[in-house]
């Protein structure tokens, strides 16, 4: 569980997050949603200690500031936004980077690390790609490979920044279903999402950010209300929590089905 209270982040004197408080519950899939520029990625990065922030962050009741970088890396894996890779590594070599927090300064990949790498490739269906060059993959393949890289850490928590961006609907479903099943197996996951339908159908817990503040926080019934969505996105939304459908401005979103 990650708790944050009165968390503020400023960038060149502009407040990006203004005293937000909330938590990412254990072994659940938490969606961080909100309009563009609401501070979603900033919240994700602040929780990982990648940004200077004020306020309190505690991971499993231990203050973030008391973690060393390697200890934090073993606790929370991070899947950054974007797909930029700087060297044309093989898929397997790229995924093995996820084991870095577990390696000593001089040690090499051990059999237990190899197990974790294979496991991550199996989970993401990237085993057949293992000897391909990671920079030559399609966007969907690369997104799954990068997710495998994050899973290979085998950390109890994962923060993913827009893992569904630039994926076609089939891959979006694959990736969110994978995150969901990881959370059901005990992983604490927070992911920044744009797709409200995905948030409605897959997330156990939601944080709705607007203008650097939390507008609503809790289960999807509590957060995805017509009033909240009107205030956050300026849309007229109708949500059926039972059927898990969402209609916006009178049009029902056609949910991709498996």
């Amino acid at each position: 569980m990650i708790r944050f209270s009165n968390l503020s982040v400023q960038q060149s004197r502009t407040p990006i997050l203004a005293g937000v408080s909330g938590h990412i519950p254990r072994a659940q899939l938490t969606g961080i949603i909100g309009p563009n520029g609401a501070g979603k990625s900033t919240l994700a990065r602040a929780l990982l200690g990648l940004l200077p922030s004020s306020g309190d962050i505690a991971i499993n009741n231990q203050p973030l500031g008391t973690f060393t970088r390697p200890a934090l890396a073993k606790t929370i894996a991070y899947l950054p936004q974007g797909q930029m890779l700087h060297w044309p590594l093989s898929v397997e070599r790229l995924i093995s980077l996820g084991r870095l927090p577990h390696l000593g300064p001089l040690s090499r990949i051990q059999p237990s690390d190899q197990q974790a790498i294979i496991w991550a490739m199996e989970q993401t269906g990237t085993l057949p790609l293992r000897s391909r060059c990671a920079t030559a993959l399609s966007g969907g393949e690369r997104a799954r490979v990068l997710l495998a890289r994050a899973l290979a850490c085998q950390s109890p928590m994962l923060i993913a920044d827009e893992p569904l961006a630039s994926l076609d609907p089939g891959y979006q479903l694959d990736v969110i279903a994978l995150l969901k099943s990881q959370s059901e197996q005990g992983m604490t996951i927070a992911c920044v999402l744009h797709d409200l339908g995905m948030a409605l159908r897959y997330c156990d817990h939601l944080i709705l950010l607007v203008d650097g503040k939390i507008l609503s926080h809790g289960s999807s019934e509590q957060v995805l209300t017509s009033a909240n969505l009107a205030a956050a996105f300026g849309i007229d939304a109708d949500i059926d929590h039972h059927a898990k459908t969402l209609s916006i401005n009178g049009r029902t979103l056609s949910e991709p089905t498996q």
Partner: protein
Amino acid sequence: MTHPSLPQRSSPPRTILLLLLGLLAIGAAGASLLFGPVSLAPARIMAALMGQGDPIATIILWDLRLPRTLLGLMVGGILGLAGAALQGYLRNPLAEPSVLGTSNAAALGAVAALYFGLSEIHPAILPLLAITTALLSLILLVFLDGKSNSALSLILGGIAVGTLAGAAISLSLNLSDNPFAAMEIMTWLMGSLENRSYDHIFIAAPCVLIGMVLILWDRKALDALTLGEDGAASLGINLARTRLRLLIGTAIGVGGAVAVSGTIAFVGLIVPHLIRPFTDQSPSAILVPSAIGGAVLLTLADISVRIIPTSNELKLGVVTAFLGVPIFLAHLIRQRGMWQ
């Protein structure tokens, strides 16, 4: 369910690569002892090596060719290693040791020693002054760079420092009223291992050694940076410390090398490119092979300046540039697909 164990794809080729490069380095060093302006039969060299040679062969081998060979290996090694590390750190295939401005700054120190005639007092003053200015440039660079972790700000800071030092070198040539001093400065700037003694080795070796250790320290951080700065930090990498170690390592190592050899272009740029296709392409995998490859390339270039018959001995930096460009172009054409 049993998992297929990962094939150790990287390991056997890496061992073979290191073995081949090691043999090449030994071969190049041996050739460097054998060839020179004075031709000595291999038997006389061997006898001198064993301590049973005639006095002329002994002096040529131990006082001329051996220090020259050792310096060539050291200078080439640190240039190759620093080039590989900086390309990995900056995630830029065009990076080379001079990108931080250290080479120019070291050259400026040497030029100052020549300009003011300080090198006449004692031959060690020139390299020591060169190392001092290299370290001063590092302090300036760290100051310019501030707390930033971005590759771009480091490149821009390096360009500023390097250009400033380059301008000061030009100024010294411009103002030099003694044509001999100007000539000496020009010659020094072209890079050479001619007439180097054990003094030079004692000055360069500790710098190169410290530089190599500091650069190799962060090889896993270089791999992690494949995922970008946030990605690396989330893998437990302390980016600020990595940057500082790499900066200090490069400044001391390359500064120490340039201090004894003069500026030698292209080795740090091309060697990592030549090595990369034989590795798994990760930044850490090219470090040690690039160090050995740089040592081989520089030693071969230094042999060629000795055996190519010209009225003046060719300068090493001139040869590495001329050798480097065609090798580099041929390589780029072959690898073009990789950087699209």
